[in-house]
C-alpha cells in the first residue's frame, strides 16, 4: 500500500467514527441500534459516575488534607500515598471491587473515588503546609481559633493547589470511567471495549469523544483553578520559564493518566 | 600559602611568561538600555602586575573584566593581550588561556577537587600524566593535602573551596588571570589570610591579574595599580595605590577612597618594612637574675619566654622571675606576622587590647616586637608629606 492509500484509509475510519457519533446505525450482530442519539445515555452514565466519585473523593480528601496539613502531621502519608497510587492499575481496583462486592454503580463509584483521592489529598496537604508559618502565627496572634485559621487563612491560600488536585482527579476519573463495563456499568467505555457489538467505527468515534471530554475538562478546570486563585497570588504575565516552574501542574508530579 | 615555600615556582608545567593587557577605547551599551555600561575605557596593564578594578556597584567593573575573556562582547573598541587583538580569536580557545575565578567560585559539585582543578588542562588536551602532575603541583601550591584531591566540593570548607577555585584558574598556566571578587564570600579573618596567600603566590608565579572588588581596602592591599570606576563605566582614576591615596583625581575618588585615607596607607606597608623593637628573650632554665636584669633594661619591662624553636610562649614580668631559674609559664601572646600589612597588624593589637605584639617570621619564630607607638610614629612621619616609592604588593612579600 502506498502512504496515500494508508492515509485515505485512516481518514476514512476516523470520519466513519465521527459519523457514528452523529448517526444511529444497526449493531454489528444486528438487532440493536447503536450510535447517534443512543450515545446520550452512555454519556449521561459516564458523567454520573464521574460526578458521584468526585463528590465522594472531595468530601474525604479535602477535610483530611486540611486537618493533617493544619496539624502539620502526615508528611509520610502524603508522599507514600501518591507513590503507591501510581503503580496500582486502575483496572485492577475496579475489578477487585466488583469481584468482591458485585457489579454495581456503587462499587464502581467507590473504586474510582479511591483513585481520585490521592491527588486531591496530596495537593490539599501540600497547599496547607506551604502557607507561610508567619501568616498562620499572625492569625493565631490576632485571636483566630484553629477552625477559623483553617477557614480564613489556610484554605483560601491553599485553594489553588486544592483545585489543581481536583483538576488532576477529574481528568483521571473521566479516563477511568471508561472501565465501567468491567463493573457492569455501561459508560462511554462500552463501545471502546466491546467493538464486536459497536463496530470499529463505534470504538474510534467514542474514543475521540472521551478524549475530547478529558481535554475539555482539563481546560475547564484549569480556568476554574485560575478563578479561585486570589488576585494577589495570581501570576502576572511572566516568562514561560517561570510559569513552567511555578505552574500548579508542576506540583502534580503525582498525577496519573489512566 | 602555608606550604608555598615548598612549592615549585618553576615546576614542570608552570610559568609561562605573563602577558600584557590593553583596553583601547572600549564602550559597551546593552540593547534597550539608554545608559552605557562602559564608556570609552582605556587602560594598560603591564605584564606580571595586579590591576584592581574598583568602584561602587553598577559601575561596570565586572562588565569590564568579563570583556577581557569575551564573556561579554564590547560595542566598540579593541582589547589586546600581548599586543594581539582578541576580537578575532575563538572565544572558547581564548578563555582557556585566561584564568577565571569568580566570587561564587562555581566549582563543579559532581567532580572531585582533582577533577575540578584538571578542567582546563583537559580542555587543552594535555596528556594524562601531565594533568596529574599539574594537579598535584597546584594542590601543594595552595596548601591542600593530597588526600583532599578525592573530596567533593560539598566536603570542603569555604576557604578550601576558594583555594581550589584559584588553583583551578591557574591550572592551565594562563599568562593572564581574571578574578571577580574572589574572596568576597569569605569571612573577614579568612579573607585576610587568603589575600596574603594569594599575594605570596603572586610573588612566585607573577601572573598578570585583573582583580575586581568593591572594597577599597582590598584594592589598596592587592593592587599594583588601581582603576577606580564610576557609574556608566567611566574610569575616574588609574594609578598606583599610594598615588590614589595621596592625590585623588577628583571629588568622587576622594570620597570613594574615604576620609581615612591616611589610615588606609597602613595597608601599603608590611610589618617587615618598618623598624621593630628588639625583645629580650629567655628560655626555661636560664638564670632568673639575668632575666630580671634584661626586663629592667627593656622599655617594655618584660622578657619573652620562648621555646626551643624560638617560638613565643609567654610574657614574663619581674614578679614571675622569683626562683634561681626561669620556669615555664602558661601565657597569652598577641602575635603578628612579618608579612602582615600594618593595618591588619594594628587591628590585631587593638583586638587583643595590648600595646605590644610579638612579630614572628614564616616559621613562627620571634623576629621582634611591634607596638602601637611604632605605628603612630610611622603615621606621623608619613603625614609630613614624603611618599616612599611603595613596593608592589608581591615585592613587599618577596
Amino acid at each position, binding site marked *: 500500500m502506498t502512504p496515500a492509500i494508508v492515509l485515505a484509509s*485512516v481518514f476514512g475510519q*476516523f470520519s466513519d467514527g465521527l459519523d457514528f457519533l452523529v448517526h444511529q446505525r444497526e449493531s454489528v450482530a444486528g438487532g440493536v441500534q447503536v450510535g447517534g442519539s443512543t450515545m446520550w445515555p452512555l454519556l449521561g452514565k459516564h458523567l454520573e459516575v464521574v460526578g458521584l466519585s468526585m463528590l465522594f473523593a472531595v468530601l474525604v480528601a479535602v477535610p483530611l488534607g486540611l486537618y493533617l496539613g493544619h496539624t502539620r502531621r502526615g508528611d509520610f502519608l502524603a508522599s507514600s500515598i501518591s507513590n503507591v497510587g*501510581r*503503580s*496500582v*492499575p*486502575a*483496572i*485492577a481496583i475496579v*475489578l*477487585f471491587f466488583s*469481584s*468482591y462486592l458485585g457489579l454495581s454503580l456503587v462499587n464502581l463509584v467507590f473504586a474510582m473515588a479511591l483513585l481520585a483521592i490521592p491527588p486531591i489529598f496530596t495537593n490539599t496537604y501540600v497547599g496547607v503546609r506551604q502557607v507561610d508559618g508567619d501568616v498562620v502565627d499572625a492569625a493565631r496572634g490576632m485571636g483566630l481559633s484553629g477552625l477559623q485559621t483553617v477557614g480564613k487563612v489556610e484554605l483560601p491560600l491553599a485553594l489553588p493547589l486544592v483545585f489543581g488536585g481536583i483538576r488532576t482527579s477529574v*481528568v483521571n476519573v473521566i*479516563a*477511568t470511567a*471508561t472501565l465501567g463495563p*468491567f463493573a457492569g456499568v455501561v459508560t462511554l*467505555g462500552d463501545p*471502546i471495549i*466491546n467493538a*464486536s457489538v459497536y463496530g470499529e467505527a463505534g*470504538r*474510534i468515534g*467514542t*474514543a*475521540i469523544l472521551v*478524549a475530547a471530554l*478529558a*481535554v475539555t475538562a482539563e481546560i475547564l478546570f484549569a480556568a476554574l483553578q485560575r478563578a479561585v486563585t486570589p488576585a494577589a497570588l495570581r501570576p502576572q504575565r511572566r516568562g*514561560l*520559564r517561570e510559569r*513552567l516552574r511555578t505552574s500548579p501542574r508542576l506540583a502534580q508530579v503525582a498525577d*496519573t*493518566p*489512566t | 600559602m602555608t606550604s608555598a615555600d615548598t612549592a615549585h615556582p618553576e615546576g614542570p608545567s608552570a610559568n609561562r611568561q605573563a602577558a600584557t593587557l590593553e583596553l583601547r577605547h572600549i564602550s559597551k551599551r546593552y540593547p534597550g538600555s539608554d545608559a552605557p555600561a562602559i564608556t570609552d575605557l582605556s587602560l594598560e596593564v603591564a605584564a606580571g602586575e595586579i590591576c584592581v578594578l574598583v568602584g561602587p556597584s553598577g559601575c561596570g567593573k565586572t562588565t569590564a573584566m568579563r570583556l577581557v575573556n569575551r*564573556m561579554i562582547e564590547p560595542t566598540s573598541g579593541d582589547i589586546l593581550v600581548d599586543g594581539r587583538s582578541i576580537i578575532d580569536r575563538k572565544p*572558547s*580557545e*581564548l*578563555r*582557556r*588561556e585566561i584564568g*577565571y575565578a569568580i566570587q*561564587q*567560585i*562555581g*566549582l*563543579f*559539585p*559532581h*567532580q572531585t577537587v582533582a577533577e575540578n582543578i584538571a*578542567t*582546563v588542562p583537559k*580542555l587543552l588536551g594535555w596528556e594524562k600524566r601531565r594533568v596529574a602532575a599539574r594537579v598535584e603541583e597546584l594542590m601543594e601550591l595552595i596548601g591542600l593535602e593530597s588526600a583532599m584531591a578525592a*573530596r*567533593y566540593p*560539598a*566536603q570542603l570548607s569555604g576557604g578550601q573551596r576558594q583555594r581550589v577555585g584559584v588553583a583551578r*584558574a591557574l591550572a592551565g598556566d594562563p599568562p593572564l588571570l581574571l578574578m571577580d571578587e574572589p574572596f568576597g564570600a569569605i569571612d573577614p579573618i579568612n579573607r585576610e589570610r587568603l589575600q596574603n596567600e594569594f599575594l605570596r603566590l603572586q610573588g612566585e608565579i607573577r601572573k598578570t591579574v585583573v582583580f575586581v572588588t568593591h572594597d577599597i581596602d582590598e584594592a589598596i592591599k592587592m593592587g599594583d595599580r588601581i582603576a577606580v570606576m564610576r557609574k556608566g563605566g567611566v574610569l575616574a582614576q588609574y594609578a598606583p595605590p599610594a598615588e590614589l591615596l595621596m592625590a585623588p583625581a577628583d571629588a568622587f575618588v576622594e570620597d570613594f577612597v574615604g576620609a581615612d585615607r591616611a589610615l588606609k596607607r597602613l595597608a601599603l606597608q608590611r610589618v617587615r618594612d618598618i623598624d621593630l623593637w628588639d625583645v629580650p628573650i629567655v628560655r626555661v632554665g636560664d638564670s632568673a637574675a639575668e632575666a630580671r636584669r634584661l626586663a629592667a633594661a627593656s622599655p617594655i619591662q618584660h622578657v619573652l619566654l620562648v621555646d626551643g624553636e624560638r617560638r613565643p610562649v609567654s610574657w614574663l614580668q619581674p614578679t614571675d622571675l622569683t626562683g634561681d631559674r626561669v620556669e615555664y609559664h602558661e601565657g597569652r601572646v598577641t602575635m603578628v606576622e612579618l608579612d602582615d600589612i600594618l593595618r591588619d597588624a594594628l587591628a590585631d593589637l587593638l583586638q587583643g587590647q595590648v600595646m605590644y605584639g610579638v612579630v614572628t617570621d614564616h616559621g613562627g619564630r620571634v623576629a621582634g616586637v611591634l607596638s602601637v607607638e611604632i605605628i603612630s610614629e610611622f603615621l606621623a612621619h608619613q603625614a609630613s608629606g614624603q611618599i616612599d616609592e611603595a613596593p608592589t604588593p608581591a615585592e613587599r612579600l618577596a
Partner: protein
Amino acid sequence: MLPLAQVHIRDRTAQDPSCVAQNGFCPDWIRDHIGDYMSPLLRHVELTVVSVLAGFVIAFALALLARRRRWLIGPVTGVTGVMYTIPSLALFAILLPITGFGFVTGVIALTSYNLLVIFRNIMAGLDNVPEAAKDAATGMGMTDHQRLWQVELPLAIPEIVAGVRVATTTTVGLAALAFIAGAGGLGQQIITDIVFKSNIVTASVLCILLAAALDLLILGAQRAALPWRRAAG
C-alpha cells in the same frame, strides 16, 4: 468480546475446588499457576522498558532543542500535556486504525504519556544547575557542547532520574490497559477471567511488585552512578 467472562474459562484444577469454583482468593491455585503469569509479566516489562526508553529519547531531544530555543517550551509542554490528558483507553483505540493491533500501538500510546513528565524534569534539572558553575564552565573555555555534557547534564541527573522514575511506575500501571491495543501484558491476563479473584489479585500484585522493583533498580543505579550526591549528604 462480549461478555468478557466467557472469552476464556481457565483451567481450575486445584487442591481446593470449592474455593476456585466460588471464584475466591485461593493461595493453592496461585501457587500452582504462577508460572502462567511469567510470559505476560515479561511482556509487561517489555512494554514498560521500551516505552520509557522511547519516551526518554524523544523528551531528551526535545529538551535539548528547547534549551537553546526557550520559546519551544510552551508549545512542547502544551502538546505533550494534551497527550497526557487523553485517557489511555481512548488513545489505544484511536491509534488502532493508524498503527494496527499489537505491541507497537501499545508502545506508542505509553510513550506519549512519558513525554510530559520526562521533558518537564529535564528542563527543570537543566534550569536548576547553579549559575556559577555554568559561568565558570564557559569562563574556563568550555564550548556550549562541552558545558552541556560535562557540567549541565551530569548535574541535572537527579531531577531527570526522578522524572524517569515517575514515568516508569506510571507506565507499569497504564500498561495494564494495553490489551485493548492487543499489546498483551498483565492486563491481558486480568481480563481472561475478570470474576476470578485469585487471577485479579495475582496479576495486580505482580504489577505493583514490578513497579516497585523497577523503581528500586533505577534508584540503585542512580546511587551507584552519583558518588558526589552521597558526599553532599
